[in-house]
């Protein structure tokens, strides 16, 4: 179990470096190092599927971050409705911390009852789902609400992007400008 602590120390060091660096591009590279450390941690914890997913996502987000930070004049506005923004931020902090506390309290210790949930899947999965492959029953049925959450997040991002980049509002703005 010593490897996992080494990787955690490496990730914490890379995160501290990413925060403390002045140059934006260097701190993006440090964030990439944190992601690669997370991939190695997943491999050590025997979750190759999560490691593949994390690796691919890290590469894509690294491309996006490099693409976004390669320009110096990033628009960043700190003015505006600061009271509303602060209240909403604190509210979300409170909600997330409360939810995390309540849900982490219910979790068992790290790896202590080894087959608590997996045992139920293995014994009752085939009977309940009427399917010939255990892994398919788990990934496509027991875990499909997890996937539904991912899809909801991506779909929300697409709807937001379409609301920002739609063509109708842009034309009207040009017309007003003329």
């Amino acid at each position, binding site marked *: 179990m010593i490897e996992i602590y080494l990787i955690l120390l490496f990730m914490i060091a890379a995160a501290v470096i990413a925060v403390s660096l002045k140059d934006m591009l260097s701190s993006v590279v440090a964030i990439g190092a944190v992601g690669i450390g997370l991939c190695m941690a997943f491999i050590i914890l025997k979750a*190759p*599927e999560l490691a*593949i*997913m994390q690796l*691919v*996502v890290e*590469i*894509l987000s690294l*491309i*996006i971050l490099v*693409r*976004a930070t390669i*320009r110096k*004049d990033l*628009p960043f506005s700190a003015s505006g409705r600061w009271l509303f923004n602060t209240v909403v931020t604190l509210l979300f902090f409170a909600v997330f911390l409360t939810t995390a506390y309540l849900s982490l309290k219910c979790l068992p210790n790290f790896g202590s009852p080894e087959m608590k949930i997996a045992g139920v899947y293995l014994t009752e999965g085939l009977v309940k*789902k*009427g*399917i010939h*492959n255990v*892994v*398919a*029953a788990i*990934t*496509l*049925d027991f875990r*499909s*609400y997890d*996937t*539904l959450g*991912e*899809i909801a997040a*991506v*779909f929300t*991002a*697409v709807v937001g*992007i*379409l609301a*920002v*980049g739609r063509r109708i509002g842009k034309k009207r703005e040009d017309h007003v400008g003329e």
Partner: protein
Amino acid sequence: MSVSKRHEEGMTFIVKTVTKITLGFILLYGIFISVGEHNSPGSGFAGGVIVALSFVHIMLAFGREAARNKLRLFSTFLLISTAAAVFLLATVKSFIKIPYFLLTMPLCETVVVGGGLFVVFITLVLIYKEK
């Protein structure tokens, strides 16, 4: 757009040629990762991100305009919405006993994630261009 201007955009001729060859293979690998979910490591999300990366390659190699010409926003959004609706139906009603839904659910996830991430990426790049 004229031919000479198209050659000026993006990276060098070597990168463009290699991208033309490898693009289909990367796309195929993403579909393979997502379809083989039930008996090998990999998932629909990872496959979708690989599909999005293969489209990002077009933009990195050929420049912004080529990628923007590839993207038809309305059709992409229609495809993503259809895939998301099918996935929602399959999750809530639990159609898993029908065998071909083993393929449908990862493919729907791949379409939503790949198309969605590519649209997000393109829009980020285009917004930064206009300012």
